[in-house]
């Protein structure tokens, strides 16, 4: 400590001035001050400043608030009555909330039993009503509902569930065609109850099971149906594999149906609907390519002889394997373009929609996994893009369709590592 440097002394002299220096430190600093006039003056200034601070004194006045007042403020007046207040609140809750709720519930149950004795009922957020012999039911995104049969059988419908119900199907107590969502069946003994779902069906007597249909892709390209048995045993039939599986309580079976093979992409062309119309040509071609496809019906919103741009079309088909209710459809809105502007307004719209989805995927980031995922999505939608040829490489995706490629190129210019190859092909279907 004999040879302290001025930089080191600068910090320590403040501690010394503030009375926070040890004996050894104090000695070393004073030794330094003997040899360094500048540091000594600085120290004296700090000492003087520290002393000057003592000039600011304050008088503490008498307290305005007495200790008793502060004490009362800290302890609420009702403190000692808290237990009594809690009892009164609980009693009021029982009288005004719990009892009326229970009474209402009992009344609803009684009405439900009366209705259920008369026949199947459908209970949803809209209330309770008799179920028609054949009815399409759909629950909202947050809604739950159930079908109750007179024998006590209950079919619970989860949120966002769509199913067709039939109560007079031959040999069955109830037939449910589950298109999407989730149902759970708790069946009493009696005739079979059948739940048909995309790609299969499950039929049972005196058991409880759950069927959940999910569409991992927003394009409805694939449906995954999961059957879980809670009580008893069921038989699950896989339509695609033509196989049956017996499931017992606690077991689960998954059936995957590739619905894109049954979908019809609607691409109306403005003009008269006749034998040579493009839609009919497309259906013929699909029939030739896809053995499973059955009857196809075209639903139109207008009754005119000619298709016009902007018209809504819905193409339904029923699979030829005979599974009921496994009906897929896709709604396509054609572009509201003037006639003769685009020979295929629907196609253009579809490509546009697909491209937008893809852009969003790219915009979210363009790492390898995301890129591959986007490419896979594009592959699934190749019919929409018109037999697009997609080359998937580490850093490259190409789309052969000129419209799609042009749009993609516009987007890809902003993103490095992605190249678009234009082949100039224009081959739809």
């Amino acid at each position, binding site marked *: 400590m004999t040879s302290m440097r001025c930089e080191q002394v600068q910090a320590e002299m403040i501690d010394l001035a503030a009375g926070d220096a040890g004996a050894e430190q104090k000695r070393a600093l004073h030794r330094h001050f003997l040899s360094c006039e500048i540091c000594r003056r600085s120290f004296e*200034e700090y000492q*003087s400043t520290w002393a000057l601070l003592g000039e600011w004194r304050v008088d503490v006045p008498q307290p305005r608030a007495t200790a008793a007042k502060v004490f009362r403020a800290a302890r609420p007046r009702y403190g000692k009555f808290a237990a009594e207040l809690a009892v009164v609140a609980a009693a009021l809750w029982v009288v005004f909330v719990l009892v009326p709720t229970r009474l209402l519930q009992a009344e609803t149950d009684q009405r439900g039993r009366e209705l259920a004795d008369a026949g199947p009922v459908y209970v949803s957020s809209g209330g309770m009503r008799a179920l028609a012999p054949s009815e399409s039911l759909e629950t909202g995104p947050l809604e739950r509902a159930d079908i109750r049969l007179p024998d006590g059988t209950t079919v619970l419908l989860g949120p966002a569930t769509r199913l067709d119900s039939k109560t007079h199907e031959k040999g069955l107590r109830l037939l449910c065609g589950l298109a999407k969502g989730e149902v759970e069946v708790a069946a009493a003994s009696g005739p079979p109850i059948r739940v048909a779902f995309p790609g299969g069906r499950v039929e049972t007597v005196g058991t409880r099971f759950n069927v959940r249909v999910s569409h991992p892709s927003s394009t409805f390209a694939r449906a995954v149906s999961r059957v879980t048995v809670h009580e008893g045993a069921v038989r699950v039939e896989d339509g695609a594999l033509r196989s049956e599986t017996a499931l017992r309580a606690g077991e689960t079976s998954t059936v995957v149906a590739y619905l894109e093979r049954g979908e019809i992409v609607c691409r109306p062309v403005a003009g008269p609907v006749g034998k040579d119309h493009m839609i009919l040509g497309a259906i013929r071609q699909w029939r030739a390519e896809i053995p499973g496809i059955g009857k196809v019906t075209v639903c139109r919103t207008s009754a005119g002889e000619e298709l016009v741009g902007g018209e809504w079309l819905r193409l339904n088909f029923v699979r030829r394997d005979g599974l009921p209710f496994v009906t897929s459809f896709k709604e396509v809105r054609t572009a509201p373009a003037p006639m003769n502007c685009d020979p295929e307004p629907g196609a253009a719209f579809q490509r546009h929609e697909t491209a937008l989805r893809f852009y969003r995927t790219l915009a979210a980031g363009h790492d390898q996994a995301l890129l591959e995922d986007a490419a896979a999505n594009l592959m699934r939608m190749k019919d929409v893009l018109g037999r697009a040829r997609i080359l998937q490489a580490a850093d490259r995706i190409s789309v052969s369709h000129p419209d799609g490629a042009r749009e993609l190129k516009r987007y890809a210019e902003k993103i490095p590592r992605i190249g678009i190859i234009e082949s100039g092909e224009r081959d739809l279907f």
Partner: protein
Amino acid sequence: MPGSEDQEDVDLLEKAAGGSRDSFAALYAKHRRRLWAFLVRLEENADVVDELIQETFVRALRSAKGFAGKGKVSTWLFSIALNAHRSRLRKRQRFRLFRQRSRPSGTADDPASMAEQADTADRVRQAIGALPENQKSALVLSRYEGLSYEEIAEIESCSVDAVKQRVRRALMRLRKELRELQ
């Protein structure tokens, strides 16, 4: 090991939390003056300081069970007071004009000397008032309340080195500000 005075504070606090008005009154009488002197150097508005004192004791009584004998009661009260002051600062824009200023108590009898001393004290008060908030509280606790850096670190919830640094910086600034008075 807490001293007998500290242990007495802990006992008073426990009894006050249990509902003893007398214990609370004793605790209040014992610590109010120091807290007032501390807060008035940070806040300078006597009305606000009164409110902060009440708030400090109310908070202390309500959270007495959380104290659980950790450290000194006085340090804990300073910590609550500082937090109450800082929450108030955050809630409103600080005003610089004081409705009631703390009057300096001089020893000189002649009016000229009193005026000079008042002027010096006022300059010191203004210089300290212009310090950044964390430097100001560290300096006030060190210079006026005589707390050790360890105790200040506990109140400020920071390290001892940080406290030292804040006091050093405060003094460096004050040295410049008050140079002409020396």
